[in-house]
């Protein structure tokens, strides 16, 4: 167990010293495995075999295909249209543009699996509009930063795929489990906007009311993408396995259908040149390679941690002291929230899941539920000072806003996230009901 703790500290140190997380985990995992097993050739064979086998993992194909789907749809200019639709329905309320931003972020999250991409994209669309209507920067930036976090919970989600591959949990079930907590997240953020404008009505003045004609016209721009989302998620859930279509997808098939559909949408809208297609494919390939590297690093580290007996030692300690499972879970969540203050989401997930997952499973918690809890806590970390990454992404795009202004505005949204986390802990069915109803679980 001591070796594993030293290894964990070494990874933390190397990562903080700017070594890429994949290499830091791989190096420490490799050296640690060698130290504990005492066999150098066996260690190197384990690593090489892991690299060769893992790169041919069928489940890994979900990553490039879902990333591709998001990028193709984005190329078709969907973010602006999603915002226009939400704005047409909500813009006339006080704080309406901020509420429209939240709903548009939720919609964008349904085709994009990354919170940072959601925040960056929506800030370009929503920020100028909110400034035009004299929204206070604290409310407008906070609504984008918080809305952006929905990207990793509402399916598809890159973080959930990584969690699924790391823990061998069904990616399909994880995606479906993210839907209700994602919707609760949208509702919570809408409440946070209303609270912000109730406290300070000048922060978000009401805009003009759109006519029903304008609303229907706005809807015309997004129907194809909404249809694509329902096809992908409906196929994954098994809801389309009825006469006359009989469609049901594995996660890879759903991702492939989504990517191809998004490609066709972008092509038919005329927003896709040969060069543009190449750029999208290139960006997707590079993202896949970087995610694959960190996964391999995490797997090597995980093998070392298991060999060193850390999960068993933690379980034994919990049993020996007779600690109730909910106390252990509360401690894990506290650790996540503290780590979230200094680490970005993916690093935090990769560092902690190999250690906590076996312990949590030993205590009888559901792996899908734990995955959703981890992602919700990660979402909180994205808007928590001092490192809340979404806040910094937003600052990078918007430029002339102080970080402290964004963090001040984000407080009500952060509180709603804590409420959502508490709900999820108290009522696991919020995450587990939909997966239990899937006709085709993977």
């Amino acid at each position, binding site marked *: 167990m001591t070796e594993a703790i030293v290894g964990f500290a070494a990874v933390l140190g190397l*990562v*903080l*010293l*700017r*070594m*890429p*997380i*994949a*290499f830091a985990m*791989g*190096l420490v995992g*490799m050296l640690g495995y060698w130290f504990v097993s005492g066999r150098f*050739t066996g260690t*190197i*064979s384990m*690593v*090489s*075999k892991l*690299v*060769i086998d893992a*790169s*041919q*993992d*069928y489940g*890994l*194909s979900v990553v*490039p*295909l879902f990333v*591709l789907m998001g990028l193709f749809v984005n190329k078709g200019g969907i973010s602006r249209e999603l915002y226009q639709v939400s704005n047409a329905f909500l813009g006339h309320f006080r704080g309406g543009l901020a509420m429209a931003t939240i709903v548009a972020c939720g919609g964008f999250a349904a085709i994009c699996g990354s919170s940072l991409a959601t925040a960056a994209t929506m800030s370009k669309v929503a920020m100028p509009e909110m400034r035009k209507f004299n929204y206070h920067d604290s409310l407008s930036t906070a609504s984008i930063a918080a809305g952006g976090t929905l990207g990793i919970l509402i399916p598809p989600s890159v973080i959930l795929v990584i969690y699924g591959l790391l823990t061998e949990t069904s990616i399909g079930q994880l995606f479906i489990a993210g839907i209700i907590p994602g919707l609760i997240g949208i509702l919570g953020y809408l409440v946070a906007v209303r609270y912000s404008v109730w406290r300070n009505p000048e922060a978000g003045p009401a805009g003009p009311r759109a006519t029903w004609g304008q609303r229907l016209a706005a809807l015309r721009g997004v129907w194809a993408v909404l249809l694509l989302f329902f096809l992908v998620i409906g196929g994954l859930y098994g809801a389309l396995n009825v006469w006359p*279509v*009989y*469609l049901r*997808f594995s996660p*890879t*098939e759903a*991702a*492939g*259908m989504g*990517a*191809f559909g998004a*490609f066709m949408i972008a092509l038919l809208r005329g927003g896709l040149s040969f060069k543009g*297609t*190449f750029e999208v*494919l*290139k960006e*997707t*390939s*590079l993202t*896949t*390679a*970087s*995610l*694959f*590297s*960190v996964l391999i690093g995490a797997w090597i580290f995980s093998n070392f941690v298991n060999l060193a007996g850390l999960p068993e030692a933690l379980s034994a300690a919990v049993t020996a002291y007779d600690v109730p499972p909910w106390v252990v879970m509360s401690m894990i969540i506290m650790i996540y929230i503290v780590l979230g203050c*200094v*680490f970005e989401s*993916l*690093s935090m997930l990769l560092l902690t899941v190999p250690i906590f997952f076996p312990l949590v499973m030993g205590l009888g918690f559901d792996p899908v539920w734990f995955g959703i809890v981890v992602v919700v806590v990660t979402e909180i970390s994205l808007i928590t000072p001092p*490192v809340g990454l979404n806040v910094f992404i937003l600052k990078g795009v918007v430029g002339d806003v102080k970080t402290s202004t964004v963090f001040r505005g984000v407080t009500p949204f952060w509180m709603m996230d804590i409420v959502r986390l508490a709900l999820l802990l108290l009522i696991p069915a919020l995450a587990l009901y939909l997966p239990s109803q899937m006709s085709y679980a993977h």
Partner: protein
Amino acid sequence: MYRLAQSLSFILMSVACATLFFLMTMTFIDVFLRSSINAPLGAAPELTRMSVAIIVFASLPVLSGRGEHISVDLLDGVIAKLGLARIWSGIISLACGAMLWWPAERAIVLAQRSRKYGDLTEFLEIPTFYLSWFITIMTFLTMVVLIIRGLLILFAPRLMEPAK
């Protein structure tokens, strides 16, 4: 140097992009054939697995050459204040490259073993050592790229910029 890197990057990325486009189209055709005439592509699973490996390993040297691996930049400000940013970045790149030597070398043994045993894929019966060799060569290339990148950052940073 810069142009050579650009050309190599273009070739590798073209391979990755073509494979990714193939994967996307094949998955669509597979689902379409299965749903419409109940005739899925039997080779789809193994082609998917091979495609993922090609996409990842063709991109890995380019990703490493660009220095775009996921990392935490929490102490960047401190390192920059100490005037160590360039040297530190070079050392990290060299270290990352050097540590790939052992897995890459071992991958040769595994690829040769797979060739000796005559391992084939289930459906198309393609010898698996082709892919193992591709993975091995790309791991070596990534190692070389990281080491050259480290050396250039330390000793000749101007060579990493486009020629004027």
